[in-house]
């Protein structure tokens, strides 16, 4: 068949949300890919400029739908930098618990949808069902399932309710039990090896230059994690090893890294890591205040300056660049979403030469999340 054009999205199951890839295909091979985004552009950065420092808190979490807490965290950190605040210890530990639980939820979702893109619909059904138990924890802690608005500049909104640690422990052991089942069905499945190994390779020597971050970078063999490089919240006190490519634990190393298989297995291993971190944080959590006293929200003025904060999300590195001129509203908030590089430049390059059967697999393994590209 001669060359033809194919549109993947925005209405297509094989794309990771409301975005579009325009493919030029020769036979089964993609010769050129172009990403088209903007379907979710709400102009957050514009809206934030006309709202006060505290009014922006409910806006930021809408930037990443599967894992909203990282945005709250990054924004809170940037404001704390500007205000020169030191967050109470207890709040830092609660933040770690919230962030890690959100990470588990996001990884369950991304693994599930990746498996769905390979055609095994059992796994998404299981992972998404189990993810709901984590949302139950959030509901008890914050009152909301998806958008928590819980991490505020200066601490967390309220203290942890009594009895929640038991629920968290119960849920974590349930998820651990279920993870074994996922391993048997999917992570040790021969067809999965055949499909995923060596697909969607990011050249290792160019990964950093391309701005690849997070699990995708760790799958290339670089053990870089913002939680280790620039410890925020209470991550400095946590005991964990960064998961990176050749050390894949119980899982087979069947390819030379940087491919869809390694990316998904790294995500799977980081669930284990997050579970252990939540347990550590619960054990080490000190008593004390949970939030600093805020100035009057309507008259809150942040000192002039430039602040940049970065956090590690399940998709990669989130960066918040906040500029203040000393008034009650920010001059500029710019969000660096991890999918900005993964979804556009990296995807456009690595889709070249891929089989159309693998396009959706590659997109899901990069875990592209359009809302943080467009904002």
């Amino acid at each position, binding site marked *: 068949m001669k060359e033809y054009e194919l549109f993947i999205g925005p209405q297509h*199951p094989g794309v990771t949300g409301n975005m579009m890839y325009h493919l030029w295909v020769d036979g089964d091979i993609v010769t050129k890919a172009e990403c088209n985004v903007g379907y979710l552009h709400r102009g957050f950065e514009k809206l934030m400029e006309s709202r006060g420092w505290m009014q922006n808190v409910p806006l930021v979490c809408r930037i990443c*739908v599967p894992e909203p807490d990282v945005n709250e965290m990054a924004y809170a950190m940037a404001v704390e930098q500007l205000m020169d605040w030191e967050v109470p210890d207890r709040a830092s530990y609660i933040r770690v618990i919230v962030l890690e639980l959100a990470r588990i939820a996001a990884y369950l979702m991304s693994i599930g949808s990746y498996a769905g893109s390979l055609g095994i619909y059992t796994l998404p059904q299981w992972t998404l069902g189990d993810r709901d138990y984590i949302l139950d924890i959030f509901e008890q802690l914050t009152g909301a399932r998806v958008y928590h608005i819980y991490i505020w500049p200066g601490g967390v909104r309220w203290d942890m309710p009594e009895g929640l640690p038991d629920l968290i422990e119960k849920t974590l052991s349930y998820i651990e039990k279920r993870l074994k089942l996922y391993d048997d069905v999917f992570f040790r499945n021969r067809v999965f090896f055949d499909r995923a190994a060596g697909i969607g390779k990011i050249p290792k020597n160019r990964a950093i230059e391309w701005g690849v971050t997070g699990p995708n970078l760790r799958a290339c063999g670089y053990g870089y994690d913002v939680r280790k490089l620039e410890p925020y919240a209470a991550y400095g006190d946590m005991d964990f090893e960064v998961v990176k490519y050749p050390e894949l634990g119980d899982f087979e190393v069947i390819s030379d890294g940087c491919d869809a298989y390694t990316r998904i297995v790294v995500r799977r291993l980081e669930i284990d890591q997050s579970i252990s971190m939540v347990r550590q944080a619960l054990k080490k959590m000190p008593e004390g205040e949970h939030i600093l006293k805020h100035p009057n929200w309507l008259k809150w003025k942040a000192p002039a300056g430039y602040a940049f904060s970065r956090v590690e999300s399940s998709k990669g590195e989130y960066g918040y660049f906040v500029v203040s001129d000393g008034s009650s509203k920010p001059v500029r908030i710019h969000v660096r979403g991890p999918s900005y590089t993964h979804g556009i430049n990296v995807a456009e390059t690595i889709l070249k030469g891929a089989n159309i059967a693998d396009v959706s697999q590659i997109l899901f393994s990069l875990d592209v999340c359009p809302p943080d590209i467009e904002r």
Partner: protein
Amino acid sequence: MGLFDGDIMKYEDWNKISRIASRKSLWMVHFCTGCGAIELPPVMTSRYDMERFGMGPMATPRQADVLLITGYLTVKTLKRVVNVYEQMQSPKYVISFGSCPINGGMYWDSYNTVKRLDRYLPVDVYVGGCMPRPEGVMNAFLELMKLIDEGKARGWEKYQKYYEQYKRNQKMAFNFEREKDEGA
């Protein structure tokens, strides 16, 4: 056309069979237009399981009956949504999620989101909240089933009847600047 004219079966009875069947088998388009799509997977999967009521996601608009507007709509998405809606085969229904399609929600002053969906597409059921909880979503589906059963879910007929008005509004949103120039 004896079957439809009342020779064999009354037109109303025929309609009733159609309604009973379509109530219990609502297929929705797989289109995540906004953040509300995050509460759909829990509704479709093992915790809430909407397949009990015969609902399921469909890959293309031709096969589907229900269009879910999951959250805010940007102008760019609205164009695609209108395309998808027009490709669907009637009877077709629209459910809108969250507060954004009702009155703009928290994006009331955004330059790129459509504020009131009912000016561009006929909406059968609204679900309030940001985000609507899965229970709310399920309730909306059940409400739609009830409306279909009573013959009140007539958004698609409304769209046909007032097609010019809908088209005019859509055009105004798509090419606002050009329209303004012509008007001036």
